């Protein structure tokens, strides 16, 4: 009996390990495919590839020097060989040189990553807390006036394109009212001043949050609306539970896995959103960088930016899958059952009465 038990335990751990290994493999394969797509796209783009490596100097090269450089970089090879070459370099951390900054791409990006993470991270957290609260508020007052007004206002705000919202915010708060600064991450020379940083973050934060908030509020509202229609809510009510207890002890619990998984897959939208907002507020982050890269045809830079965001998004996508498949109590329940069955010495199915 005891040996049996430990064997089962072992098998369970093996299953678990296998599951996470599979997810890891999925991640690696996805990133790999992503890099192929991005590489292929970037090779299709017009422009002199040598420019990307040598900048202005490429135009002054002679014929022989050019040919030599092409061979050295492997650019005379077929695209597949080039890709392998690029991959090899990439593993060594060499993604080429930024056309604009004349520096290795990675070092340019490294200086900007934190700024974007700050803006994206704060708006992400605030947005999801607000979305949950608003979703609960709407369902609490479902189909009553407060809910209806909130939904209408939300629809209108969600119809405002992000860039125009930012424009109006700048126009009103920076140009007309002079309340908040309109650009940058900090006043020059005050990079360590926290209060100054926050002041610069306020408008971009509002823009990012407002333009995404409603979409997620609706999602949560819809999930909750389904949840409060479940039969178990009626039973909880018949037990004598108050409305508040039913909402917070039962319904919220029910939508949490869905909530987390929505959060995880919302990453690309939020990332895309911060890019536009960064650009408008001239906020020195990845977004402004990719805008510059796009305008100046700095493809080395663009590729790395695509891959960085892609990796983040794929990671969170897989995380959301894991949340759906593992963290959901309904699934945990099934596992737990098997465990208890094993200890009771029965097999299969459900307990019959």
């Amino acid at each position, binding site marked *: 009996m005891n040996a049996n038990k430990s064997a089962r335990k072992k098998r369970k751990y093996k299953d678990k390990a296998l599951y996470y290994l599979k997810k890891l493999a999925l991640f690696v394969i996805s990133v790999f495919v992503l890099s192929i797509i991005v590489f292929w796209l970037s090779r299709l783009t017009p422009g002199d590839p040598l420019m990307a490596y040598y900048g202005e100097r490429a135009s002054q090269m002679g014929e022989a020097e050019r040919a030599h450089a092409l061979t050295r970089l492997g650019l005379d090879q077929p695209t597949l060989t080039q890709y392998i070459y690029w991959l090899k370099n990439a593993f060594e951390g060499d993604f080429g040189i930024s056309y604009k900054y004349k520096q290795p791409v990675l070092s340019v990006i490294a200086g900007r990553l934190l700024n974007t993470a700050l803006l994206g991270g704060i708006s992400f957290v605030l947005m999801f807390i607000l979305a949950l609260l608003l979703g609960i508020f709407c369902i609490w007052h479902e*189909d009553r006036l407060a809910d209806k007004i909130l939904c209408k206002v939300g629809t209108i705000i969600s119809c405002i394109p992000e860039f125009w919202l930012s424009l109006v915010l700048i126009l009103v708060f920076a140009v007309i009212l002079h309340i908040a600064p309109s650009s940058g991450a900090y006043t020059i020379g005050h990079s360590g001043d926290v209060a100054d940083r926050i002041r610069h973050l306020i408008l971009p934060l509002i823009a990012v949050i407002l333009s995404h908030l409603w979409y997620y509020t609706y999602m949560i509202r819809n999930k909750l609306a389904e949840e409060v229609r*479940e*039969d*178990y809510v*009626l*039973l*909880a*009510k*018949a*037990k*004598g*539970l*108050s*409305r508040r207890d039913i909402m917070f*002890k*039962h319904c919220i*619990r*029910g939508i949490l896995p869905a909530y987390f998984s929505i959060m995880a897959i919302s990453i690309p939208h939020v990332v895309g959103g911060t890019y536009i907002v960064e650009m408008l507020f001239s906020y020195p982050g990845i977004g402004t960088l990719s805008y510059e890269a796009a305008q100046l045809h700095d493809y080395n830079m663009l590729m790395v930016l695509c891959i960085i965001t892609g990796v983040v998004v794929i990671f969170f996508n897989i995380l959301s899958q894991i949340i759906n498949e593992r963290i959901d*109590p*309904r699934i*945990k*329940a*099934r596992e*737990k*059952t098997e465990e*208890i*069955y094993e*200890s*009771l010495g029965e*097999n*299969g*199915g*459900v*307990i*019959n*009465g």
Partner: protein
Amino acid sequence: MPNLLKVNDLSVSFFSPQGELEAVRNVSFSLNEGETLALVGESGCGKSVLCKSLMGLLHSGAVIKNGEILLQGKDLVKMSESELCNLRGSEIAMVFQDPMTSLNPTLTIEKQVAEAVRIHNPGLSKAEIHDRVIQLLESVGIGQASELCKLYPASFSGGMRQRVVIAIALAGNPKILLADEPTTALDVTIQAQILDVLKDVQKKLGLSIILVSHDLGVVAKIADRVAIMYAGKIVEIGMADEVYYDPRHPYTWGLLRTLPALSDGKHELYTIPGAPPTGINLPKGDAFAPRNPFALPIDFEKEPPMFRISDTHYAATWLLDKGAPDISLNSLDSIVSKQEAMMQHKSGKKTVRDENILEVEHLSHRFKIRRGVYVNAVKDVSFNIKAGEIFGLVGESGSGKSTVASCIMNIYYPLKGSVRFKGIDIFNPKEASKNKDILKTKRQLIFQDSSSSLNQRMTIEDIISEPMVINRIKPERGSMKAEAEYQMKYVGLDASYAKRYPPELSGGQRQRVAIARAVSMDAELLVADEPVASLDASIQAQVINLFRHLRDEHGCAILFIAHDLAMVKYLCDRVGVMYRGKLVEIGDTAEVFNNPQHEYTKSLLAAIPKPDPRSERQKEIHIYRGETHECE
């Protein structure tokens, strides 16, 4: 006996864009301490709404228009939400219909019961609460409670969950237990156990129970008093014996006569004509009058009052008025036997022919649960069906009967075994494709739930002519339209429905459309998978009669899959009983029902509640516990 609960002149309405829906109309009744009152009626008669209004659980669209609900003298209608909240669970508790959805799947059983205990006993310590939870679970017959309470609902079967729901209801020591169709979603043997649990806790705790049900058999088993509801009104109320053995309202007569269990040996089930009203724009006068074969002129003018028959027995029909003609249940029986004689005259011939239309041999099928784990849904099942025969396949949910049907219809490809239809081996690709046309037309399928088996965006006419269009059959009667109308008339549907869409039809009408579609191809075998399970008793009888007519006039064989044994007994020539994937008994219907051989068949037959309170009260149930599903 003091009145615990008294309902006076209660009316509840819903407001929808179509108009006001009067769900409960001027209902008055009282409930005594320690008694069981049953509310009986078909779906939409307002019994559930009435039940919910007693606990203040009506949703926001419902309005209590007038009346009072007096619980020990206090009026519930006037109470605020927080006052009601204090009352729920401690004075009145409720058990719901579907145990599969009424427990929160994300919390363990212990937490859900403990929550109810804590609300009603705020001072208890953790250990005390735990003890109480175990005690509650044991009181509803859950063994090994201290182990099992750590599980989530997902690992409990329907019967076990319903026990948990009852335990939760008992947590606050309520005086009244409302049970809204507590056994409808359960198999018949489990149903018997749950009814025993209810009876048991009632005896121990002195509860009063209000049982809501559509099943006169279930009610006969535990009710002391019975109230029959129709179109939002109580039309007859009395002690169980009075209502069952001396019914006075024509609707009660109809209900009792539509039950196949009571129409032993009759060729035709009595059917209440028409369908129950929806509650919007109710007809003037007695709402039942249009369906009442004995309706008097006054029925169409004025609603009948409650006539007193005895101190406990009342009924609302003008037939009890002093000036009314002398009509009783016997009058209904004479109508039925007249119909019977007519039908007998029409179809006296023997329909079963001595050739096998379907031969199922050693059929096995399994489903994958997880990687490497399979459950044998069907194991080595063999039977055959003769041309023109109605073969019944019965079993509880999960017994594999639907899987057999799916294999016969080529929806699943079985693990082992063969199925021959008219001699064609349907799993042999070569033979099947050679005889494709026969397979497509002569073998037809009818599903249980007619609302999802008909495309909601096709007109009835298009649905019925679909097989003809698919198989490019030239309509015999000129056009597809004429053909569809002919089929509609044949199954008893008005031709004016041809241009309507399925959602506009009632459940019974939709099932008729499904049947019309199947027979339009002159099918020789109908595979009907629980075709009447989702219909009301009076409509069930109509559809069952239709199946009989089809066989008698058309000569087609029917594989009738059902869990309702009474229905099978009435309709089928031969019957097979399935249990956990195996066919445990097969034989002529009369033989199987009168002299069952297998233990499972015996327990199944014993568990069917009959609408006969005197015998039901004495019956003891033995549950067959055979082997479980085989897993590999």
